[in-house]
């Protein structure tokens, strides 16, 4: 999709009646390092978690490397809208109105009703889905995720944490996975912890292991949700250093964080979220040097 590794299109997310995402669209290019900022509750985590379907978007589509991960959102595809009965009826009634206007009205008024749109519409939906859809488990295997609270598997050793998924998913043999894991552990200087259980590790060690656990899957992109927020201050540095190292090696990264320094140093692009939308997007220089929207200015005045 437009050369983006991850593409989010028209994403809406409701938790019951609460509207958390209000039509977010953004693209992440291969090799790009994107930092997401925003006040608490602005929907940063929700957007990030939609990218690997830990949350299911209510409307909208998520694409990974040209594959559709969500159901088809008909409103995002004109060729599907124009195949609908609603569109045809409106067109007949309006004797020759501009089709763009009709489509805009259908989108705006949410006029499509799956069950009543006829066979052609259904066929188009199905064909589009079949052509592009990728199973969520296959997609997730390509997207690493690092959580605020590490989420290492408590019942498994460090080495088992790292090899479980690649072996279980048959991406690697046990030997391959173990040698890769040991290689990664030696990169972070924790080979001696290979057989330790997570409860014996410090927060910084846990998070660095969580990061290399994801790397063991050879992901195409890594998502980070406030990876340093649960850490004691003296451990934040070691985790950020590892992330900088990944960035330098060319890993595609989307990082939700409050670490402004990290954003300045590492980000190619910063997204500022407010109220369920991306309110501003730009290079760190643009965002921190010349913020355009009022909410961003207010936000920066609080965090800087």
């Amino acid at each position, binding site marked *: 999709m437009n050369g983006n590794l991850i593409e989010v299109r028209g994403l809406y997310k409701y938790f019951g009646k609460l509207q958390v995402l209000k039509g977010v669209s953004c693209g992440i290019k291969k090799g790009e390092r994107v930092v997401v900022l925003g006040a608490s509750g602005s929907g940063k985590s929700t957007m990030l978690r939609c990218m*690997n379907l*830990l949350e299911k978007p209510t409307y909208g589509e998520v694409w990974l490397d040209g594959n559709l991960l969500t159901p088809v959102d008909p409103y995002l595809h004109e060729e599907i809208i124009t195949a609908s009965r609603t569109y045809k009826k409106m067109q007949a009634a309006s004797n020759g109105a501009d089709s763009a206007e009709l489509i805009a009205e259908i989108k705006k008024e949410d006029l499509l009703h799956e069950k009543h749109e006829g066979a052609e519409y259904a066929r188009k939906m199905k064909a589009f889905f079949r052509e592009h859809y990728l199973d969520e*488990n*296959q*997609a*997730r*295997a*390509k*997207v*690493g*995720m690092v*959580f605020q*609270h*590490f*989420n*290492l*598997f*408590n*019942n*498994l050793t460090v080495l088992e944490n790292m090899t*479980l*998924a690649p072996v*279980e*998913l048959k991406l690697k043999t046990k030997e391959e996975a173990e040698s890769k894991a040991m290689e990664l552990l030696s990169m972070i200087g924790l080979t001696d912890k290979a057989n330790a*259980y997570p*409860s*014996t590790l410090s927060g910084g060690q846990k998070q660095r292991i*969580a990061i290399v*656990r*994801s790397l063991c*899957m050879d992901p195409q992109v890594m998502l980070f949700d406030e990876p340093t927020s649960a850490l004691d201050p003296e451990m934040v540095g070691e985790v950020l250093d590892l992330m900088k190292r990944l960035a330098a090696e060319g890993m595609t990264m989307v990082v939700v964080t409050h670490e402004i320094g990290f954003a300045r140093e590492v980000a190619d692009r910063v997204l500022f979220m407010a109220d369920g939308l991306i309110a501003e997007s730009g290079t760190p220089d643009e965002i921190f040097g010349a913020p355009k929207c009022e909410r961003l200015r207010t936000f920066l005045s609080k965090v800087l």
Partner: protein
Amino acid sequence: MTFSEKIAKLWDLRGLFGESLGYSLLIAFGAVVLGFIIGVILAVIRIAPKTNPVIKALDKIAVLYITVIRGTPTLVQLLILYNSVLVWFKRMPTNLLVPIIAFGINSGAYMAEIIRSGISAVDVGQMEAGRSMGLSWLITMRRVIIPQAIKTVVPTIFNEIIILVKETSVVSYIVLKVNSIQKYDLLGMAEKQGLATPACYLVFLFFAALLYLTIVMLLTFLQHLIERRLKKNER
């Protein structure tokens, strides 16, 4: 009859009591294994996201099962199964499976609730981490969640096992057969021998009680051993 004569009588019967203890243990062991398997399966069904109609239907069945089994006396369940089996298979030279299945089905309902509570106590982040790496819900359950859940419910599971071991004494209400020969569980043997030698009845009952107590104490010991072992795994 003097007390020492009664003890001598008990000594004469030691082989029979030993054998009956064996049957009690066999039934309890079989029931625990079966109950545990049923419990895990039911708990997983109960906890599974209700995304498709098959799971929804299975969940309804699981709820019904748990409600009915927990809502009726074990002895009634045993008698119903025993008499149904009598109706369907008239000749059954060995029927040890009947109480094993009855107690297993019974225990499964309790185990299900215990294991379900253990699964709910596992941090949701564990499932999210598994899913985020592309593991399926079921694989994450099996490899990550259930092992952690079992660990937290070891004491409650053992409690259930202990109750079950003692509850197997109600099999003395049915006729146990092995190769067409009538056999007795521990309490059944005490009662049978008590009828034969009424003067010794109380001694036999106390002896049976002592054996149950010993088994329960051994189980408690095993529980502590397992708990300590599981704790060590974290260090």
